C-alpha cells in the first residue's frame, strides 16, 4: 500500500516538476508574437565570416538576416533592440550532442546498429534544450552513442524550445550516421554484467573488420538494387535491408559519417578504409590525437570535432592536448569544438576561447570553431554559422566579449524568433516560485485525505509532458 502511494506521489511530483520546468523556460508568448522584423542596433558584431563590425547593426526579416553593416534601414514596425555595449555572434553550433534523446543513447547489443536512429526518439520537452539555448547554442548534431563500430543515425536540430519533435528538426540538413573506433566499441571500459558474454569486436583490428564487413555487404546490396533498376531482375526488387540502406547512402555521398575516434593510428586506419571502399568521413568526432595526423585528415577532407581540454579520463585520452584544435586548424583541417554534454554545451563560447590561449588562434578563428566550422561540417553553412545576408537569423546577444569567462548570453534568436531572453527569465522567477508553492500546497492538501484513506487515486494532474527521472535513463 505504501509502495503504491509512493509510486503515485512520485508520478504526481514528476508531473508537477514537468509543469514547472515548462513554465520556467517556455518562450514568452509575446516574444513569439512580436514583429517579424527586428533590428539590432549599435552592437559589436563578430560575423565569424568577415571579421568584426565595431558599431554595427543587423536587420532581421522573415527569419533571415536581411542586412548587416555599420548601419541598416529600420523599417516601420520593426522591433528595435539597442545593442550598444553588447556583442552579437552567430548562434553557436554543437557538432556532438546527446541532448533531447528519449531513453538510452546506445543500441549497444550489436556492433552495427545503423537501422536505429536518434531521429526516432527526439524529446523536444527536455529542459536541456532551454539550458543550451541560454548558453547561446542554436543548432546541435544529435548523435547516437559510441558503443558500436557502426552506430545509429543522427538528427540535426535547432533549439526551438517549445516546438514539437517535428518542429525542432533542422529542415534540409543532410542526414548522418555515427561510427566509433577504439575503446568504446571494443567495450574496454564497460564492466560486463554477470552471465553476459563479450561482444565482437574486442580489438581495434576487429573494429575495422566490422566496418569493412558491413561495407562489403552494403556494396553488394547497392549492386543488387542497381541491377534491379537496370531491369536485370525481371521486375523483382531485392528485399529491403534497413541496416544496409544507410550505408548505401554513405557510399552515395548522401549521408555524413561522424566517426568517434581518439588515437591517431585508428583515425588513419579509418580514413584509409573509407578511401579504399570509396566514401568520405565527414567528421572525426573527439579526434583527440588528430594533431598527430592533421595532414592526413586535411588531405582526406574530413572535418575534426574535438573537445577543448578534456584529457586523461581513459588511456586513449592520455595524449589529448588543449592545443589540438589550433594545431589541426594550422594544418588546414576544418575544426569544431563540441560539448558531448548537457553541461559543457552551455559554455561552448568559453571552450572555443581556449584555442586562443592554447595554440594562438585569432578571435575569428576561435569563434568559427563553434559557429561556421561546425556548420560546414554538417553541411548547413548555406543556412547558418555566420552573420551574412540571406542566412537564418540565428543570433546571440552577449554581455561582455563572448570569448571571455565573463560573457553572458542575453538574447538568443533562432530564425529571427526570440527563444531565450535573460531579462524575461529573471522577471518570471518570482511568479514561478509562487506557482510552485501553490501547486505543492494544493497537492499536499489533496494527498492528506488520501493518506488517511490509504487508497490510491488516479492522478488528476496532466502527465503528458512527462519528465524523465534519472533512473529511467539507465539502459
Amino acid at each position, binding site marked *: 500500500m505504501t509502495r503504491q502511494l509512493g509510486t503515485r506521489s512520485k508520478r504526481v511530483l514528476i508531473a508537477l516538476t514537468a509543469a514547472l*520546468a515548462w513554465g520556467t523556460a517556455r518562450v514568452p508568448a509575446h516574444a513569439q508574437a512580436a514583429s517579424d522584423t527586428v533590428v539590432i542596433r549599435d552592437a559589436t558584431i563578430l560575423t565569424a565570416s568577415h571579421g568584426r563590425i565595431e558599431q554595427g547593426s543587423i536587420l532581421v526579416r522573415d527569419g533571415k538576416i536581411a542586412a548587416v553593416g555599420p548601419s541598416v534601414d529600420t523599417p516601420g514596425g520593426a522591433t528595435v533592440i539597442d545593442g550598444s555595449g553588447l556583442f552579437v555572434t552567430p548562434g553557436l553550433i554543437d557538432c556532438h550532442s546527446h541532448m533531447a534523446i528519449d531513453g538510452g543513447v546506445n543500441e549497444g547489443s550489436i556492433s552495427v546498429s545503423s537501422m536505429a536512429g536518434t531521429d526516432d526518439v527526439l524529446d523536444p520537452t527536455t529542459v536541456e534544450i532551454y539550458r543550451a539555448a541560454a548558453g547561446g547554442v542554436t543548432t546541435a548534431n544529435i548523435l547516437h552513442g559510441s558503443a558500436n563500430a557502426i552506430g545509429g543515425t543522427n538528427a540535426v536540430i535547432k533549439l526551438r524550445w517549445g516546438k514539437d519533435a517535428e518542429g525542432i528538426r533542422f529542415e534540409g540538413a543532410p542526414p548522418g550516421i555515427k561510427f566509433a573506433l577504439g575503446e568504446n566499441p571494443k567495450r574496454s571500459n564497460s564492466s560486463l554484467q554477470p552471465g553476459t558474454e563479450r561482444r565482437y569486436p574486442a580489438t581495434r583490428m576487429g573494429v575495422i573488420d566490422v566496418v569493412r564487413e558491413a561495407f562489403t555487404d552494403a556494396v553488394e546490396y547497392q549492386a543488387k538494387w542497381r541491377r534491379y533498376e537496370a531491369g536485370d531482375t525481371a521486375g523483382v526488387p531485392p528485399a529491403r535491408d534497413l541496416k544496409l540502406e544507410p550505408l548505401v547512402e554513405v557510399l552515395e555521398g548522401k549521408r555524413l559519417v561522424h566517426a568517434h575516434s581518439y588515437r591517431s593510428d585508428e583515425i588513419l586506419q579509418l580514413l584509409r578504409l573509407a578511401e579504399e571502399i570509396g566514401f568520405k568521413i565527414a567528421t572525426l568526432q573527439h579526434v583527440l590525437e588528430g594533431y598527430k595526423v*592533421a595532414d592526413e585528415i586535411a588531405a582526406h577532407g574530413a572535418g575534426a570535432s574535438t573537445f577543448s581540454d578534456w*584529457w586523461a579520463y581513459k588511456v586513449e585520452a592520455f595524449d589529448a592536448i588543449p592545443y589540438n584544435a589550433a594545431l589541426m586548424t594550422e594544418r588546414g583541417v576544418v575544426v569544431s569544438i563540441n560539448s558531448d554534454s548537457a553541461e559543457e554545451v552551455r559554455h561552448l563560447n568559453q571552450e572555443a576561447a581556449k584555442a586562443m590561449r592554447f595554440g594562438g588562434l585569432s578571435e575569428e578563428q576561435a569563434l568559427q570553431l563553434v559557429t561556421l566550422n561546425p556548420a560546414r561540417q554538417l553541411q548547413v553553412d548555406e543556412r547558418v554559422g555566420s552573420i551574412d545576408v540571406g542566412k537564418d537569423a540565428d543570433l546571440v546577444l552577449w554581455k561582455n566579449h563572448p570569448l571571455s569567462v565573463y560573457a553572458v548570453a542575453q538574447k538568443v534568436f533562432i530564425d529571427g524568433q526570440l527563444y531565450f531572453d535573460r531579462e524575461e527569465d529573471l522577471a518570471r522567477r518570482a511568479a514561478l516560485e509562487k506557482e510552485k508553492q501553490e501547486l505543492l500546497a494544493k497537492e499536499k492538501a489533496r494527498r492528506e485525505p488520501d493518506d488517511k484513506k490509504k487508497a490510491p487515486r488516479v492522478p488528476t494532474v496532466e502527465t503528458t509532458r512527462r519528465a524523465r527521472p534519472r533512473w529511467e535513463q539507465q539502459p
Partner: protein
Amino acid sequence: MMKSWTARPQLVTMGVVLIALATSVMIRASQVEPRVASEVEPTTYAIQGARIVTLAGRPIERGTVVISDGRIAAVGADAPIPTGAEVIEAEGLQVYPGLFDAISSLGLTEIGAVAATNDETELGDFNPQLLAAQAVHPASEHIPVARASGLTHALSVPGIGESSLVPGQASAIHLAGWTIEEMLLSRTAALVVNWPTYRLTSSGPPNFSRRSRSFAEAKKEHDEKIRQLSEWLDQARHYGAAVEKGSRDRISPDRKLEALVPVTRGELPVLVNADRVREIKEAVDFCEKQKLRMILAGGADAYKLTDLLASKKIPVVLGPIQALPSSEDEPYDIRYTTPAVLHKAGVLFALGTFNSSDSRTLPYEIGNAVSYGLPWEAALAAITKAPAEIFGVADTVGTVEVGKLGNIIVTDGDPLEIQTVVKYLFVNGRLTALDNRHLRLYEQYRARPKPATK
C-alpha cells in the same frame, strides 16, 4: 638533454649604484626549465615593476616582490632589491598569490578508466586513518598541467563524493617537489566525511540492474550509517581520554580511533560532502552536537541555507560552477549565482574542482561567477586566500605578504581569464617550470614535417 633555464643570461643595466654590484640576471618564462644538478639554484628573487595584487590590502600599482629562502621577504612600491638577487623584469605583468584548488584529487589518479592508476578510494566504509599524502604521486602528469594555469598548491582529497562514509584524511600539497616530503603543505588538513544520502535506487545481485527501493529502506541505511559514525566518535573520545590519562599501556592501540581523536577535540576539521538541503542540515546539526569543526563540501543547495551557514560560521568549498542545476525547475544559472549569494550572506567559501585533470580550469570556473554578482576580488579570494583560511594554512599561503611562503604567480593579465598566460610561477620560493606534457606533445607534433605524398 636538459639545458639551463637561464639559457640567455643577460646583465641588467642598473641605475642605482648599490644595486649595480649585484649580479642579477633577467630570465624569460619560455626559458624556465629544470636545472641540472650541478647548477646552484638562486635562493633570492626580485620581481620588479609588476602590479601586485596582494589580497592583503590594496593592490600595489607598480612594485617589487622579493622572495628569499623560500619565503616572501619584501613587498612594496619601493622594496629594495637585495644583492645577488635574480631579478625578474615584470614591467606590465601582474603578481598574485598562487592559486589553491580547495578540493582536488591531484596526485591520487592518473587515468580515470585505469583502476591501476587510481588511489582515491579505499575499500570499506570507515578509514579515518588513511592519508592522501601517503599516496600522492609527485610525478603525476596532472601536476605540471595544473601549474600552467597558475595553481601552486591544492588539497588532495581521498574518496570525496564516493559511497565510503569516511574515506580518509585530506592533505594540502605544494604542486612541485621531487618527493611528497618536499611537497607537504599540511599533512592532515581535514577528515573527509561523505554524508549519507537517501539512496532510493540500488543495484546488486541477481542481475545488477537498478531497482528502486522504498524510502523506509533508504532511511534505514542512512540512519544506520549516522549511528555508526556517532559510535566511532564516542569511542574515539573515550580512547582519547584514556590515552591522556596515561593508561596507554593498558589499552590496545586502535589506529582508526587514534585518527579520530583530533577530530573529536576540534583540532582537525571534518570536510563533509553534502549537497541537498536535508543532508546539509543533518550534517550541521550532527557536527554541532558532536562539537566537530565542520567544513561543507559540495553544497549545491548551500544557497538555500545561507542564514544557517553564516550563523554557525560553517565555511563551504563549492564544486565547479560549470555544473548543471540539480533539479529541472531550478533557474538555469543557479550554479553561477551561488557564489555571489554566499558572499553576500557573509559565508566564507572557496572553490574546488573535485578533479585532477580538470584542476587547470579552477580560475575559469570561479571567473564564471563574476558576471553573476560575485565581486572579482571575492572570486580571486575563493581560489587563494579563502581556502587557506578554511584549511588552516593562512599563516603560510593565500596572500602576497612578508613572511609567507613564496607561492606566487606572475601573469600577463587577469588570472581568471582563459587567455591569460602565467609567465612565472614560484612554489616554496622556487622558480618552477611551466613546461608540461601537453606543451611537449604540442611542440613535438607541431614540428612534424609534412608527410611525403604518394
